Every structure is written in structure tokens, then in C-alpha cells.
């Protein structure tokens, strides 16, 4: 078991015929992901990576019964691709595209409201269910099937914490990158909620950073649910220069509410264990599980 996806999830890739998609989808297929089709407008009827290519998501869904879509479309058309997937009733949309205009993401969010779709990203490394399926561009070298659910705003730190939980003998049930953009699909709170309902997940790790309110929203949810599973959080950016762009547009210290110290405080108050250092996340989770 896992959350969002599993080894039987049938996946299409929007933008399959592009260069980056070609490279990463080949890796995903090798990992075991059930890629069933690609979508590239104007390329319908061809084959690419030995997969059928369709002009529209609706055509691809009708022909293959896919329930998940991986969006590999460049920024100019990424929002239109996400909206097309939402309109086609795709249950899970994972968008890895970086630098999507923020007003486009607001258009996507308005489309998401009331739909059946869960969106992961954009600017996300994706969703990984170790040993089962890979929907994204993350490295899988240190990932092992296990019991820890990881929800993260940072792709690089996810790789790091995956390695730490594997070294700690715990492994991962699912890893989810919510993406580094200010306006995105599911947030840390929704990931926590999914992991709490997942019998295969015994512990939850959240990786947050300065800026935004994902951590505060997760803290509010945890405070209310008082969950039985241990939750560990790492929040980075205590020593970031204030109010400057730090790579992710999302990583901005936007007022006091967005500071690392404030986030750590509300998470601690909600009963979340705070990893004292970035290299101690796996160890902190192992201690939390035995205590």
C-alpha cells in the first residue's frame, strides 16, 4: 500500500515527445511505472518510446483507462495541460515543470476547486512509491520500500532524507514533492492527511522551508487530529538572508508568519518532533518510532 499511486496505476505523460520527458520516462518505465500513453497535440497516431501518442488527454484516457498524468510541458503551455487533465477527469496530475507563471497557477487552482483531481506540483520532483512506481524526476538510488511517508517542499532535501531513512533501516512508503512554487496543488497538510489514512505508513516526515504557510496549515491539521503516528519535521532557512529570493519563488521570508523559527514553533506546539539538524532527520524518526 501507498498513497496517491501504486504499481497498477496507469500513467500517461503529457509532453512525452519532448527531450526531458523522453529521458525521464524511459527511466520510469525501467523502474516499473505503468506508462500507457503519451499526449502531444499534433502528434496523435505516432508511437514514442514504444508508447502510443494521442492528440488529447481525453483520447488517451478513452483508449487506455489511465488515471494519472505526468505533465512535462514547458511553462508557456503547462497550465493549459494541467487544465486539460483536470477536465478529462484524471485523478492524479503530477507537474514537474519549473517556472510556470503564477497567474496561470491561479487559473489552475480555480479549475481544481470542486474537481476530482489531485494536483502535485508544479516545480515538483513528483511522487515515488519505492519498488512500485515512479511518477517524476527524482533519483531512486537510495529509495527502499518501507514505512515512512515523506512530504516535502524541496526536491534536494527529499533525496537527502530518503537516503537517511533508508540508512536508518526504515525505508519509505511514498515520497511526495509538493513543489517549490508559491501557488501549487496539494500542500503538506493534505499529504499528512493521506499518510495518516495509509496503513503502510507508520511515520511521517515533513520537509519545510521559510516562506508560505504550508507548514502552518499542516500544524493546524495535526493539532486538530492528534494523530497516533509519529510526525517529524525539518524546517530549513533559519539563517537565510531576510526577504530575498532564494531560488524557489516560494522560499521567501514573507513576514513573521513565514519564518523558519515561527514554523518550528507552531509545529512543535502541535506535537511534531523537530529534527535538530538536517542530517538527523532519519535518526529522529527512528527514535520517535521506538518511544
Amino acid at each position: 500500500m501507498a498513497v496517491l499511486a501504486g504499481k497498477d496505476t496507469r500513467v500517461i505523460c503529457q509532453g512525452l515527445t519532448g527531450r526531458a520527458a523522453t529521458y525521464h520516462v524511459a527511466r520510469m518505465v525501467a523502474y516499473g511505472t505503468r506508462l500507457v500513453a503519451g499526449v502531444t497535440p499534433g502528434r496523435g497516431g505516432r508511437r514514442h518510446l514504444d508508447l502510443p501518442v494521442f492528440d488529447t488527454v481525453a483520447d488517451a484516457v478513452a483508449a487506455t483507462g489511465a488515471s494519472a498524468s505526468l505533465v512535462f510541458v514547458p511553462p508557456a503551455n503547462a497550465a493549459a495541460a494541467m487544465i486539460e487533465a483536470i477536465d478529462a477527469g484524471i485523478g492524479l496530475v503530477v507537474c514537474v515543470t519549473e517556472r510556470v507563471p503564477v497567474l496561470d497557477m491561479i487559473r489552475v487552482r480555480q479549475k481544481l476547486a470542486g474537481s476530482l483531481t489531485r494536483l502535485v506540483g508544479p516545480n515538483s520532483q513528483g511522487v515515488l512509491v519505492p519498488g512500485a512506481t515512479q511518477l517524476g524526476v527524482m533519483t531512486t538510488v537510495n529509495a527502499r520500500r518501507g514505512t515512512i511517508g515523506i512530504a516535502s517542499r524541496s526536491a534536494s532535501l527529499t533525496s537527502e532524507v530518503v537516503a537517511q531513512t533508508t540508512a536508518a533501516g526504515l525505508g519509505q512508503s511514498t515520497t511526495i514533492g509538493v513543489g517549490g512554487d508559491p501557488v501549487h496543488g496539494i500542500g503538506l497538510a493534505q499529504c499528512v492527511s493521506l499518510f495518516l489514512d495509509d496503513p503502510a505508513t507508520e511515520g511521517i516526515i515533513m520537509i519545510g522551508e521559510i516562506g508560505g504557510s504550508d507548514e502552518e496549515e499542516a500544524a493546524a491539521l495535526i493539532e486538530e487530529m492528534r494523530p497516533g503516528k509519529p510526525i517529524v519535521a525539518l524546517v530549513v532557512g533559519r539563517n537565510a538572508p531576510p526577504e530575498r529570493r532564494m531560488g524557489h519563488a516560494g522560499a521567501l521570508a514573507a513576514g513573521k508568519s513565514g519564518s523558519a523559527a515561527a514554523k518550528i514553533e507552531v509545529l512543535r506546539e502541535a506535537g511534531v518532533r523537530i529534527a535538530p539538524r538536517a542530517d538527523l532527520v532519519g535518526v529522529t524518526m527512528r527514535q520517535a518510532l521506538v518511544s
Partner: protein
Amino acid sequence: MNLHEFQAKELLAQFGLPIPRGRIGGSAGEAEAVARRLGFDRCVVKAQVHAGGRAANGGVRLAASPTQAGRIAAELIGRPLVTNQTGPAGQQVRWVYIEEAVEFSRSLYSAVVVDRSAGEVLLITGDHGDAGVMPRPGGAASPAACVKLRLSGDRVTGDFDGAASTYGLEPDVAALLAKRLAQLADAAVALDATMIEVSPLVLTQAGELVVLDAKVTVDDNALFRQSDLAALREASGFEDGDPVELAADRHQINYLKLNGDIGVVVNGAGLALATLDLLHEAGGRPANFMDIRTTATSLDIAYAFELIAANPRVRAVLVNVHGGGMQRCDTIADGIGIAVHRSGCAAPVVVRLAGNNAEFGAARLKSYGVPVIEAADMWEAAKRAAQLATRKAA
């Protein structure tokens, strides 16, 4: 991308928002000539910097004649202007905007901003509650009213009438305000602005609502479809920001200079923030923030490494890389190898490579003959770099 006041106003005027007559000047002589040509007696001279708080700090001044406008311009141009939004060093004034003085009876606040947490576009309005010719410096807007806007394609809708009705204005003025707010929202969406702030929006004796000051921030991620704005930045030399950081940005590297003595090479913004935290914890002081983007090639990385090696304050370099699916350790190792071959590096280099192609990356570094101090994990690496920098400093 931040726009200057004069650029913002010219753009807003294209959406129907009235702006006072005015022109830009780059010297005292130009400022005086502009005032004369436009037939101004009394006019306002405004320093063009990307920061608020200008009026309270002498950056916006009333001139009684073209001659005085020239004198004020001479005092402003070529000097830094320090306000509560510029930082202690201030921002260099290169241009002034000379604008007709507008008498007003009412002064309002309006803004269209992206609320990142809610994923919405908001229209915010308020009342400055002052009148006169010069807006009251630092005048706070109250009460702030907030209206959620709705985007569908290129159209934007919202309760502009409701927002306009909260200030006790005459019905015809309220109707005009609703129209102006709708124009502001149209402008925000058409320009891909993450923020447009018009403060103040003033009611003149003639019953018109005029944009007296405007700040616009355009979404950098949308510049591909705002080619006029992108060209404005490239061509006019109005680009803001540190030239070294902007050059790094063109090499797919997010780089910020800091005050410490440990150069930092990291891939990914989250890991980069974590590395700064670890260095501080270990008693070290980072000389920079670095996030090597997934799109950076080994030559881009070499460029970034040379920035660090060329910084005379750097006493040690910490390379903390976790190879991901898109940026692998060997690419970064190649970048470092190329840089050290090309330009050398006097400071000791502590390296921690993990994740995708970590061993291959370490082998690449060896094959370049780069002398490195290897560390098993990122805490060991941070401690070692901090020790080396301290020892060198002593």
C-alpha cells in the same frame, strides 16, 4: 521584475487609468528643460528607485518653478536614496520623474496582489484620509477592504462596485472608482503582475481619479510572454539587482553574496538553505548562498565555482551536493574540475557528494587532480569547513 514609477504609470495609462503629465530626466538640465517644455510652474520631482518610503526621505519633492526642479534633480541624481525599504546602503538615483502637481481632495489606496497561500488574486483598497498636493508621507491606509478576483482566461471579474462603495463617496465618484479598480485588475492580469500598488489614487477638483504613484512587480516566470517588458529591462539599463548575481542567474545558478568566509556550492534551494543552517550551527559563516539549478551544465557550474574562488574573503569552500534525478554529482564534479584547472583555488575544498552518481562524481574530481577533503556526511563537512576557515583566519 520591478518597474520604475514612470514605467508603471505609462503601462497603467494604456489600460485607461489617468496619470498626471510628466517626463523622465537623467540630469538637472534635463529636469529643468522637461518642466519648461511641459509648461509646469509648480511640479513634483520624484527619485526613481525600486522602493517605497520616498516621500518621507526627501525622494519626492515639490518644486515651485522649472529652475527649482533642476536644483532638486541635481541634489537627487547620482546619490543613493535611503528609505525604510532600501536597506542601509540605499539605492542609487539615476533618473528623476518630473510631474505636474495635482491638487486633490481625497486620497485612496488600491492594490492587486497575488495571495500565495490562498492561491488567489486579491483587490485591496483603503482610505489614506488626507488631502492637498503632496501625499502625506508614510500615510497608512485604513480601513483595508479585500475583494477576491476571479480569472477566466484573460478576463478578470470581481465585486468592484462593492469595493468602491465602502468609502462614503458620492455615487458618481463611487461608480468611477469601481471603473478604475476594474482597470487596475485588467492591467494586473494583462501584465502578469504579482503586485500592482496604486498609492495614492487621488480624487481631483475636476472629479477625476488619478494615479499619483504606482509600483508594479511583474512575474519573472511570465516574461516569455511579456516581450515588451523583457525588452524594457534588457534595453533601458533599468535592470535592478547585483550584476554578479544577475550574471550567475544567466548561468542557471541562484547566487547571493553573504558576509562570511566559507564559499558554498550546493544543488537545490532546500539543501542550500539547510547547508547555511548547518554552517551556522558549526560556527562557520557562509560567504554566499548557492543553488545550482537542474538546468546548469558543467560549464555553468565552473563559472559559479570561479565566482567563489575569486572572492578574497573565502578561506574555505564547502561543496555539499546530493545528486538528484536531474542534476547528478558527476556534472557538478566536472564543473569544479574545470574551474580549478582554469583558474585554480587557493582555499581548501571540503566535499560531500551523495545521491545520484556520488561515487562517479568523486572519481571525476580525482581524475581532474583536484585536491579535496572528503567528508562522510553534511554535518562532518560543515564542521570541517568551519574549522578550516577559523584556522586560516587565526
